[in-house]
């Protein structure tokens, strides 16, 4: 029997404007969904009228947040929180970014409540590559905003006689790769074209990975020559900063710091977790730029050293800065995921012999994931 689908909005912060696009509703219709319930106001954050969703499928209708949560399959990009999960009916399939490896309590909650889940960040191909991800937007959006700040700070930013700008990127992994490319283009291809046409020297990016970042002398010398410092690392030990706050003093006064790894501070554990670059605030879609005098510094846990400050950028969800483009990417990526969910009963998915996407989605299903780890 056709499964009904609910598309509730995300109500985390005012700046969260993302909703899936009407194209997904159209796809769900073609893939055999039953009722498709979109929350009142869905899409309004990105300028899409409700009528566009209703026009995408004769089975689509508008409902309240609670009605959306009452459907058999609930699709929402960011994890909606413990209280919302507790309000779901047993057997509901929640499709969301669940981050199971780092949030074991969510897995146990699903088991306790008999909620079924598909973790979008866990949908991987046979080689372990994520099929639903947008690290490109993390790199590009963060770097674009950082260069806007540099442009604001540097009076000679667009002058042909200035030297090339110097970016230091810590980390050369997936996020770092996009950040490096973005940085060579000011995070904005159009700005890059304008600067090239005006014969303004470009940007050189120096990449240092963990075999260099722990060496204080090397790092202090490098930081002294840095206009933009990017943290794109994945630390094995989040209790140790890569750039302690003392080192921030080595950066020029007008340098900018960009945090793409977005590890949070957590002083509820001992030793506490701290950010890779110590002393910069946590950001979100409501505020992601922090100048040295920003009151956000005063709200940091008392154990965090913040004496040395530069303009810093941090955002829990960098892709959300360009919500429409972001949801075009995610929408296209989850279409084949939804086809699996709608075509076959969840207990029949075969992680070994199913089709390519059936295997990928089965790997991301909470019960199977939990069983594999407790076996």
């Amino acid at each position, binding site marked *: 029997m056709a499964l009904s689908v609910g598309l509730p909005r995300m109500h985390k912060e005012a700046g969260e404007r993302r909703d899936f696009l009407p194209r997904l509703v159209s796809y769900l219709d073609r893939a055999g969904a039953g009722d498709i319930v979109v929350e009142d106001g869905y899409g309004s954050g990105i300028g899409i009228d409700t009528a566009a969703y209703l026009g995408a499928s004769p089975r689509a209708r508008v409902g309240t947040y609670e009605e959306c949560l009452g459907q058999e399959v609930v699709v929402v990009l960011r994890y909606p929180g413990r209280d919302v999960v507790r309000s779901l009916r047993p057997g509901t399939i929640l499709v969301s970014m669940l981050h199971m490896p780092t949030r074991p309590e969510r897995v146990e909650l699903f088991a306790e409540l008999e909620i079924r889940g598909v973790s979008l960040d866990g949908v991987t191909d046979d080689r372990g590559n994520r099929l639903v991800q947008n690290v490109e937007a993390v790199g590009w959006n963060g770097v674009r905003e950082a260069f806007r700040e540099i442009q604001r700070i540097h009076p000679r930013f667009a002058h042909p006689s200035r030297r*090339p700008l110097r970016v230091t990127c810590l980390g050369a992994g997936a996020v770092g790769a996009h950040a490096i490319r973005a940085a060579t283009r000011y995070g904005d291809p159009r700005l890059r074209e304008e600067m090239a046409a005006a014969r303004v020297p470009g940007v050189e990016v*120096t990449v240092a*990975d963990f075999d260099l970042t722990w060496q204080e002398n090397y790092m202090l010398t490098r930081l002294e020559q840095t206009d933009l410092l990017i943290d794109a690392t994945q630390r094995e030990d989040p209790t140790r900063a890569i750039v302690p706050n003392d080192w921030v003093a080595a950066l020029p006064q007008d340098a900018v710091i960009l945090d793409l790894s977005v590890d949070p501070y957590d002083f509820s554990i001992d030793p506490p977790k701290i950010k890779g670059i110590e002393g910069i605030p946590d950001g979100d879609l409501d505020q992601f730029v922090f100048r040295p005098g920003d009151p956000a510094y005063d709200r940091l846990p008392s154990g965090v050293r913040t004496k040395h400050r530069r303009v810093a950028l941090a955002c829990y969800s960098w892709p959300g800065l360009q919500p429409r483009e972001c949801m075009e*990417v995610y929408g296209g990526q989850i279409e084949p995921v939804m086809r699996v969910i709608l075509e076959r009963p969840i207990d029949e998915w075969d992680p070994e012999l199913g089709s390519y996407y059936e295997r990928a989605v089965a790997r991301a299903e909470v019960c199977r994931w939990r069983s594999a780890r407790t076996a």
Partner: protein
Amino acid sequence: MAKRPHGLSFGLPRMHREAGERRDFLPALVGKLADWGVEVFVEGGIGSGMGFRDQDYTDLSPLVHLASNEEAFRADVVLTLRCPDESEFLKLRPGSILFAMLHFPTRPKRVQLLSELGVEAISMDSVTDDSGRRLVVDSRDVAWNGVEAAFDALEETWPDLRTPSDRAVRVMVAGPGEIGKHAVEAATKYGNIERAVRYAREGLRGVEVLVVGRNLTGDEDHMRRSFRATDLFVDATQRDDPSKPLVPNAWIADLPPHAVICDLVVDPYLLDEDPPTVSSIEGIPQGNLDQWIFMADDPAWDRLPAGVPNEHRRAVASCYSWPGVHPLPCMELYGTQLAPLLEVLIRAGGMDGVHAEGSYHERALHRASLRAWVGAG
């Protein structure tokens, strides 16, 4: 129990271009084809370059048969990684499907010939998702294998590399695109994780990677100044104008004598074409799977086309097919990438059942087909 043969048959001829070409599709992929119910004709000796025996394939299923090269080319679907010589196209049956790296955009004569022969072709390099991202590609191995070879050469040209000192190894990567991004990561690990671990134990300083894009690669002063402090230069650029080198030979004089040049672009010298194509780094030899490291005194320089400036020479790592340097992981990757596409092709019964508005992999296959390419043209 043997599966009932499906309508399609598959042929897997070997690649006979150079002695160093050791790649063939692996038993794992052939086993999947048989599991999906198709007969598979593999050319004798398949996999031998990677240590496999014919029985490793034929023991998989009664649907897998040993065949001659010609028989493999007579199957309904001919699957081979590199494009066969165009003279071999005549072995294909009209209506059969050639699935290989066919490079439609840059090979108009090939497109015309395949069309005239009535061959259904699918170009692996054109298989893309809805956002244009290639689904059959091994850019990671291009970068890692190339950078690994370059560090092999650097160990030869620069004994101080392994002397603990205060200075990091300096790598410069030009072009931070799809290949360049992997080159950056590879460079931070000396092109090889085991080497990075070994060097770390020896107390070596690490690698600093300088990345430059187009807005600096054309700046002669900046590039030559940077070259003076560069131990390894990696070219991962995509030029707008392949008739002009990115790095004129004169600039190479600024690299230290021990420096190594790593060519990941590997554009050939086609001086008779109009417009001509020249190597991105002027005056370096182009390698293949028989030889990919060239020290500065290698006779390969004497074989460069007349008129190509090559006065300034440094050790070079260059290979037309970098992924083939380590054939097994390369073919594991390609096998994994191709499997869902082949599964869809088989279930569709051939290209007539593959629709532009179909599933994710159907759409990808359709975009890469000759019929779509010709239709769009």
